[in-house]
């Protein structure tokens, strides 16, 4: 993976929002590289900053959001410094995005075809007719039956799974080099989710684009991605190769998440529960942001903010007790039984 030149580099990205109650630091310093053809998962619960990260890359933040620090380098150019027109030529063309709720992301008053051809005529300088032919091809490619008919239908005439396919077709219309998928299967049933995940894998093989996969579903992450970033409170708490993250988690939050989900392949007597709830973004504890919910927290955690430490090549964790975790987990497990 590392021998390739990254197509996207995010360095110390911070995204803040001005609100009535003060400045909300939704994303507070995250770093990652994305290489062509790889899939990077960003995992976290609500309010962890995973979606804001993707919106920052697309420059789709609300008007009260801004990026005070950090760089997003796409093919050598800093996205945060691009002019609006430069950004327009990148967005939807080279970096495309699919959203969680296909009904709200599609425009209900235009046909599927009109919405796909819009991007094609804009970015690829095709005439209407060729664009429509391409739209039909794309719909066929994403597995929509009778694409000639569907292309003239409106979003409400399609089922949830079909809409998500149409949205993928739209995102792929200009052969993007990066596809950002924000919870693309969360609203779908599992059998439909399986179809969409399979489709995304096939399309990635065919087109070679890089995918940033944003989700809270640890099963989907394991299935889809090569690397993962676990976010909590706007920060990366652990980052690394997918096998390391799952088999050898080195942050108490990651470990807690892995053990709090019921699984169909393993029987668990009692689920691990991370105590408490994610605090409001204005009320995170000083020091380590996870310290008020962490079973390893010491006095140091409450006052000093840990940095992202390298554990081994390409595996990072933000914790003062990286070494203690493995031992403590054994004790917890023993106590359980």
């Amino acid at each position, binding site marked *: 993976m590392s021998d390739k030149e990254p197509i996207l580099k995010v360095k110390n990205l911070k995204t803040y929002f001005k609100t009535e109650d003060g400045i909300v630091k939704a994303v507070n310093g995250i770093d990652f590289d994305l290489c062509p053809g790889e899939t990077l998962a960003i995992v976290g619960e609500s309010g962890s900053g995973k979606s804001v990260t993707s919106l920052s890359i697309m420059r789709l933040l609300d008007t009260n959001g801004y990026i005070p620090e950090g760089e997003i380098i796409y093919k050598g150019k800093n996205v945060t410094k691009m002019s609006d027109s430069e950004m327009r030529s990148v967005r939807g063309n080279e970096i495309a995005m699919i959203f969680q709720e296909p009904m709200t992301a599609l425009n209900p008053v235009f046909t599927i075809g009109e919405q796909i051809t819009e991007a094609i005529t804009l970015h690829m300088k095709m005439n209407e007719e060729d664009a429509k032919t391409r739209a039909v091809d794309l719909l066929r490619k994403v597995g929509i039956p009778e694409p000639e008919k569907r292309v003239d239908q409106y979003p409400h005439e399609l089922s949830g799974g079909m809409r998500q396919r149409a949205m993928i077709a739209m995102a792929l219309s200009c052969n993007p080099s990066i596809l950002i998928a924000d919870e693309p299967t969360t609203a779908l049933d599992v059998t439909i989710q399986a179809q969409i995940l399979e489709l995304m894998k096939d399309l990635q093989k065919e087109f070679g684009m890089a995918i940033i996969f944003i989700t*809270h579903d640890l099963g989907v992450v394991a299935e889809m991605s090569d690397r993962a970033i676990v976010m909590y409170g706007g920060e990366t708490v652990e980052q690394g190769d997918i096998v390391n993250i799952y088999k050898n988690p080195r942050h108490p939050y990651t470990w807690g998440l892995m053990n709090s989900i019921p699984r169909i392949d393993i029987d668990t007597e009692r689920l691990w529960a991370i105590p408490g709830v994610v605090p409001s973004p204005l009320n995170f504890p000083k020091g380590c942001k996870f310290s008020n919910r962490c079973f390893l927290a010491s006095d140091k955690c409450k006052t000093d903010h840990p940095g992202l430490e390298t554990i081994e090549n390409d595996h990072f964790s933000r914790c003062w007790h990286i070494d203690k975790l493995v031992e403590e987990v054994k004790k917890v497990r023993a106590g359980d039984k």
Partner: protein
Amino acid sequence: MEDKKILLKVDNLKKYFPVRAGVFKKVVAQVKAVDDISFDVRQGETLGLVGESGCGKSTTGMSVLRLMDPTAGRIMLDGEDTTTWFMKGSQMKKYLNDTYLERFEKARSDFKNQNEAIEFFQNEIDRKYAKVYFEEGIAGLKKLVDTGNNHKRKYFRRNAQIIFQDPYSSLNPRQRIKNIIAEGMLTHNLIKPSDVNNVVGDLLDKVGLQKDYMYRFPHQFSGGQRQRIGIARALALNPKLIVSDEAVSALDVSVQSQVINLMMDIQKEYKLTFIFIAHDLAVVKHISDRIAVMYLGKIAELTSKEKLFEKPMHPYTVSLMSAIPVPDPEVKKKRIILKGDVPSPLNPPKGCRFHPRCPIAKDICSKIEPPLKMIEEDHYVSCHFAGEFRS
């Protein structure tokens, strides 16, 4: 498990929603959300109802609790036929006729002796009603089922409670937690008004919230805390049966596990019986003793969780399990990708409802609807080729 008493018995439950159109709002079609399903829930167990959207799992829960009026079917709670408790006049007459009288008349003509005819029925309620019918006639039976229905309804409401999916819309935003939790207990005269603070405080304590939260309003709580309040409200009446309708689906992973643990703890403590409705098979597996997999208004497979996961027999169950991503990057499983979408319950396929998507469908599947059959001890499958499809 086998000798355990059956708390809830549901026979041939149907719930159709009429589709109306035109100036006169004529009924033009029926959405068959739940179409003839039967199941038992045993005392102290958790029955999981699992399926994809539109399979009728929530409608089943709502109908069992009589938050919706079922189109047909018999719902028996703790040895009593509760169906008539919510019926009036002609509706009740028709129900008695369809459910009991025809069978009673047949039994009477089949057996010479009245007692033999009564003994013929397996179900306790059937026997009880048959005895009254044979001795006192239709008038006697009517009198039996039609007296004290107000009282019976109250009894039912107290003993069958629900925990809803959305903790944001299921708590009245204008009431304090204390009133939300105590309302039922006061209505049913279970406690004196002077005891409210103590009792509510204890309940909050039980579900892991601080006692003084009772003076707060719902908006002051997070989703997980609201769900705890919902659980406290259901517990307050000390019910026999709790239906939990997607109670943990809206919660974040870390909070979800807290609420699941809480539900399992209180079940042990209060010996509660649960119907746990969810779309997430992993969650259902964790919490349930037996599981019913539903597809398009029908039960596809019903058995203990061990059997379901070791030896799924319905092709839909097999496909559903293989579609769930496993949180382990080293497991690369071969999945069965079902074609197409779930058809609309307005126009369900003829024959087996799963046949257009089924990997092993044969001719017969598109013609004859397979009944839910017992394949082995405590393992019910509705498939002509049960057990022939493996992942």
